[in-house]
């Protein structure tokens, strides 16, 4: 049967149409599928969560560039030498106020170093005529303005040659203008900010190591509070004014202000003195670690230290001005924790970062503010909390047992030595929490429990000894009483044989 050409062409087309059509269909279908779901993988089986949390490296916000410091002025030049000070001779007799000022200067560190009035006020200290001594043409500048004062102090105190003999640092001027105070002064001409004389005094300046100096370590918090606790002064800046009050309740405040321990941090220890600025979140661990070095070392071993902006830092759990004694309570909320996604996830960008305002209330400074009970890491949190609680219980139990033995009159020196070994391990266990590693913490808690059990055993032995002594005592006293009864019986027999008493 012969087919025509048209017939053969039509058949070829038909044959080709099937695979081509199928391919087109497949192509169309897959495009539709891609539009409806972003991931191509089917989601019938749940995938295991990735074991390591990858945090996109949050870019640190660029720090605002600092306004440069004004150029350092040169020290005031005046006639005469260090011995000439006619200013003092007049001003000490002028009126009571001036006499006080003169006396203050004389006792001050400048007075003793023969840094005279003209060194800050200008003028001619060799003349006793007021028209000469206090003449602007001779360099007299009167009471310098606040902005000018910083330059006058800085002129000498940045001079290495001048400060060498007193072994004083010379970086205060530069540091000051990097501080919040200095920046406001330089950028906005705000003379309400703290300047040198506000903290160190004017005429009555003493070395900072002098306990009567306003800048002595124990006096620093009150000094900063003289402005920073004043609502009127802080109103234009919107800075809170409760820091001093809060600090006084903290362990640092108690140590510095009540115990007078100058190793405790004042405001300047964490914020800087001349370069005062609140520490950034990237700086916190370093600042706290300046004193708490061992804790910093432990923290740096932890998972938290690797997580950048989403990780808790020292202040997250321990607070800032209100640092209090840490304890078992820091692990978990007593009852339901108020979970909030925004604690860790930025609602706008979905980026992971830690919202520190969630931790303002001390009751929320807990591991489970971030770590939800349904999370995989929660078991580790609970494990750490539990093992530490067990160690503490074992230690307290041993301590109580030793107290019992001591109250029974037993000598417990050896038990106390064993207990201090347990205490060493317990403190190490508590510090190890900063590593967030359950294995590390458990190593120490196991040690604690073993040693506490030894101490407990020794104390229990003494209690048992006391009990057996008391049992023996009862037997002996009973025997003695039996003896007494025997004697009484004999006595009665003998008395009966005596003549009656006359």
């Amino acid at each position, binding site marked *: 049967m012969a087919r025509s050409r048209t017939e053969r062409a039509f058949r070829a087309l038909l044959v080709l149409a099937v695979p081509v059509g199928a391919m087109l269909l497949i192509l169309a279908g897959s495009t539709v599928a891609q539009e409806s779901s972003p991931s191509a993988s089917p989601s019938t089986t749940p995938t295991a969560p990735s074991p390591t949390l990858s945090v996109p490296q949050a870019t640190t916000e660029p720090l605002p560039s600092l306004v440069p410091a004004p150029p350092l002025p040169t020290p005031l030049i005046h006639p005469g030498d260090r011995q000439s000070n006619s200013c003092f001779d007049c001003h000490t007799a002028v009126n009571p106020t001036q006499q006080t000022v003169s006396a203050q200067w004389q006792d001050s560190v400048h007075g003793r170093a023969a840094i005279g009035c003209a060194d800050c006020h200008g003028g001619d200290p060799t003349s006793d005529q007021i028209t000469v001594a206090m003449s602007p043409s001779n360099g007299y500048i009167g009471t310098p303005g606040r902005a000018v004062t910083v330059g006058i102090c800085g002129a000498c105190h940045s001079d290495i040659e001048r400060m060498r003999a007193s072994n004083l640092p010379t970086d205060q001027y530069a540091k000051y203008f990097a501080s919040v105070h200095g920046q406001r002064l330089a950028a906005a001409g705000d003379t309400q900010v703290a300047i040198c004389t506000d903290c160190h005094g004017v005429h009555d300046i003493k070395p900072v190591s002098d306990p009567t100096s306003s800048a002595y370590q124990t006096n620093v918090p009150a000094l900063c509070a003289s402005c920073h606790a004043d609502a009127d002064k802080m109103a234009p800046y919107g800075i809170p004014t409760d820091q001093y009050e809060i600090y006084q309740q903290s362990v640092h405040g108690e140590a510095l202000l009540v115990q007078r321990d100058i*190793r405790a941090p004042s405001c300047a220890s964490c914020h800087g003195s001349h370069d005062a600025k609140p520490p950034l979140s990237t700086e916190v661990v370093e600042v706290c670690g300046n004193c708490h*070095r*061992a804790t910093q070392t432990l923290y740096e071993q932890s998972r938290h230290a690797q997580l950048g902006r989403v990780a808790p830092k020292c202040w997250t759990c321990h607070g800032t001005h209100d640092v209090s004694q840490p304890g078992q309570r820091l692990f978990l909320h007593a009852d339901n924790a108020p979970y909030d996604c925004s604690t860790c996830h930025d609602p706008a960008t979905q980026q992971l970062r830690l919202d520190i305002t969630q931790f303002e209330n001390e009751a929320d400074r807990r591991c489970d503010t971030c770590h939800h009970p349904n999370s995989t890491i929660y078991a580790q949190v609970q494990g750490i909390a539990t093992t530490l609680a067990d160690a503490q219980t074992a230690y307290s139990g041993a301590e109580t047992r030793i107290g019992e033995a001591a109250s029974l009159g037993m000598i417990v*020196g*050896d038990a106390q*030595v064993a207990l*201090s*070994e347990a*205490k*060493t391990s317990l*403190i*190490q266990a508590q*510090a190890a929490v900063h590593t967030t590693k359950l294995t590390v913490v458990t190593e120490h808690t196991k040690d604690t429990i073993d040693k506490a059990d030894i101490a407990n055993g020794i104390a229990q032995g003494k209690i048992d000894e006391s009990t057996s002594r008391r049992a023996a005592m009862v037997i*002996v006293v009973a*025997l*003695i009483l*039996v*003896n007494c009864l*025997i*004697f009484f*019986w*004999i006595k009665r*027999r003998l008395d*009966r*044989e005596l003549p009656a008493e006359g």
Partner: protein
Amino acid sequence: MTRPETDGIGRRRFLRYLLGFSAVSTLGMVAWPVIRFLIPPQTRAGAGEGRVLVGTIADIPIGSAEVIPVAGKPTIVINTAQGVKAYSAICTHLGCIVAWDGSSQTIVCPCHDGRFNPASGSVVSGPPPAPLPALDATIEGDDIFVVVN
């Protein structure tokens, strides 16, 4: 008022019995502790021993240290280049037991990172307020002794 003779004999024997019991029980109560007291105890030799052997040069080579109980108190014995030193191992801060840090060759308290100088026991850094009390340690031949008070 005398009693009948028969009663008297019976009473007298009973009396002897009672007095005998009294004497024996008293003697026992008093003599037993006294005799046990006189027998010296088996435990540590007590006062007057003078010194305790804490180890040998092989146990504690130069640059290393051990924490050993001496007369019941934890003691750290260090073999330094300037001789053997011994100190109470009870940290003067809060009573933890100190340890030896070989890498920095200092005595470290693991509780709050207090550090002590092995040459004198004085505080190098950290919160301890006072140096570690020193004890006398001597080497005789290969043996290291710590003098007990």
